[in-house]
């Protein structure tokens, strides 16, 4: 039943034995999955997990705290470049490097959160947009970040995760899977837990009404900057993992468009929902990868090719993915503001009460 009888039931991470059962099943299936599917799909799964982390981080900020950000590509870039750099230059092991990069991203998030105290919607959007453009600009021009050429991720070893170097190189996608998925899983549970604590409720109170939250004793300075910092931390972690998934990073990959893609994950998944963030990250990653090779799609691909030759340009065909993304964002905002999560909830209610 949905009725809750005491406070501890409300803050439990997993509500019932049934949920516990499915939770364990999920862990088990995540562990066996990479042994069942071909390598390319493992790569996709890794990519999805990284985008789920970003989506979670952004949702904490946009969906739960109600602060808009168009600058998450900047945090993503900080995570990616600093992880690689601190491994290459400072010879840090991977996990400390990742943590250092994510904490730096969080620091930048904190700084960006300071003007957010005085700014609302449109102003904040502009400030965060400026931030991410400035970050990519600085990274692109500064020689230590490899300039326009970018950086290559060093090879990763199993012991290299904790110590400086060692045998067992992690190079196949399957090995990376066992690095990325646990981190994503842990961060998901952490986000879910966070939203059940005092901090999470303060975030939601700020989203619903800043002034009401302030009257009830929520410290806006603390919680708003905290939301930015946590969000940036998540995105930084995702950025660090991304560098190793792709193996090579250059500043042009972290453009303004990427920030919009991140927002699209959250919007499509559903604002203010952990499950929605996961759905958004997974579905949109799949869509991005499909649309990258749009000319190979059955039926549609050939039609698009002839259409491009006649009216558009063949070299510009990959740009169709931007068009489709833009349309998806607009359609979701206009017709289903709660995204996939809203759809899921409605389907669930429909079947629960089915004949009626």
């Amino acid at each position, binding site marked *: 039943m949905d009725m809750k009888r005491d406070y501890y039931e409300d803050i439990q991470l997993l509500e019932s034995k049934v949920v516990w059962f499915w939770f364990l099943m999920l862990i088990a299936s995540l562990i066996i999955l990479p042994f069942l599917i071909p390598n390319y799909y493992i790569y996709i799964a890794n990519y999805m997990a990284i985008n789920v982390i970003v989506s979670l981080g952004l949702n904490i900020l946009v969906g739960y705290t109600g602060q808009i950000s168009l600058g998450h590509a900047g945090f993503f870039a900080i995570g990616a470049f600093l992880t690689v750099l601190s491994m290459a230059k400072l010879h840090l092991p991977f996990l400390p490097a990742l943590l250092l990069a994510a904490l730096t991203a969080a620091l930048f998030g904190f700084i960006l959160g300071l003007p957010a105290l005085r700014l609302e919607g449109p102003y904040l*959007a502009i400030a965060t947009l*400026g931030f991410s453009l400035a970050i990519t600009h600085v990274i692109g021009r500064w020689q230590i970040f490899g300039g326009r050429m970018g950086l290559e991720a060093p090879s990763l070893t199993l012991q290299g995760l904790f110590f400086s170097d060692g045998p067992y190189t992690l190079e196949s996608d399957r090995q990376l899977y066992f690095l990325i998925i646990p981190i994503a899983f842990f961060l998901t549970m952490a986000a879910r837990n966070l939203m059940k604590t005092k901090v999470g409720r303060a975030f939601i109170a700020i989203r619903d009404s800043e002034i009401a939250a302030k009257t009830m004793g929520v410290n806006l300075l603390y919680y708003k900057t905290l939301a930015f910092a946590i969000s940036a931390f998540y995105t930084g972690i995702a950025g660090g993992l991304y560098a190793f998934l792709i193996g090579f990073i250059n500043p042009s990959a972290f453009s303004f468009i990427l920030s919009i893609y991140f927002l699209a994950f959250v919007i499509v998944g559903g604002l203010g929902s952990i499950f929605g963030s996961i759905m958004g990250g997974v579905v949109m990653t799949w869509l991005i990868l499909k649309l990258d090779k749009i000319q190979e799609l059955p039926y549609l691909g050939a039609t698009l090719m002839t259409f491009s030759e006649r009216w558009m340009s063949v070299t510009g065909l990959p*740009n169709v993915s931007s068009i489709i993304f833009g349309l998806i964002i607009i359609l979701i905002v*206009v017709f289903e503001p709660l995204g996939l999560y809203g759809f899921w909830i409605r389907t669930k209610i429909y079947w629960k009460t089915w004949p009626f």
Partner: protein
Amino acid sequence: MFLQLLISGLSFGSLYALIALAMVIIYKTSEVPNFAQGEMAMISTFIAYTLLEVSGQSFAISFIGALIFAAVLGVFLEFTFLRRAKDPNILSLILITLGFEMILYGLAGWRWGADQRYLPFPVSDFDIINLGTAVFSYLNIATLLTALILMFILFLFFRYTKVGIAMKATQQNPMAARINGIRTHRILSITWALSSLIGAVAGILLAPIATLDPNLMLDPLLKGFASAVLGGMTSLVGAALGGYILGIIENLFGGYVSVEFKSVVAFMIIVLVLCFKPSGLFARHYVRRV
């Protein structure tokens, strides 16, 4: 050196001022920063290019054709997407303009590819007038003059025409405007058309200095925002002045401090202004609604 930097600063500044004006006009009526502004101007510039190069029309006809296209595009965005939003809060309106931005960016990339093109402009950047130690190019002068003329027309428009006054009324209080018999929806569409048109002028003036590709307006868009924030998002005069100030500051920074990090200036200005005077330098007040 100083005079030279000042001149090119003013020239760039007038472009920023136009973009900022286009944004502020929208922001005052719809309360949404239009992130599609840049791409709308970019597409309109491409239309001018197509008319000029592919169809072989004269520059005047291409220019007017691009402006008409821009106006129609503005109305289209307002009518088809923004008006449809069910529960328009700031976030969803911003997202709609972002979505539209991506659609236009994709369309331009699809149609014209990533090739860098050159928009033949009747006024050359290489014919120059010497003025003491500084050099004016004809293009600088044309840019400055066009921007000033356009601003003057806008001033007259908002001051003396019925539509302009109706627009101001709608900006101040939509409800009262409706009661007084103004069709606010129609006014809103006209506002978007006007804004898009101003943006297109900026795009066409920018094209001969920059290269014409789908990324044409990505950077100027941020500059436009910075100018609007600097002058005050709710003040037309402020936005225009903000554009000139930003152009000059940026160019002086590029000349005396570092060319490499010139683009970061715009961001620093946004952050500093928002931290210390969120209403901008020239806007009167900053209303917070509960």
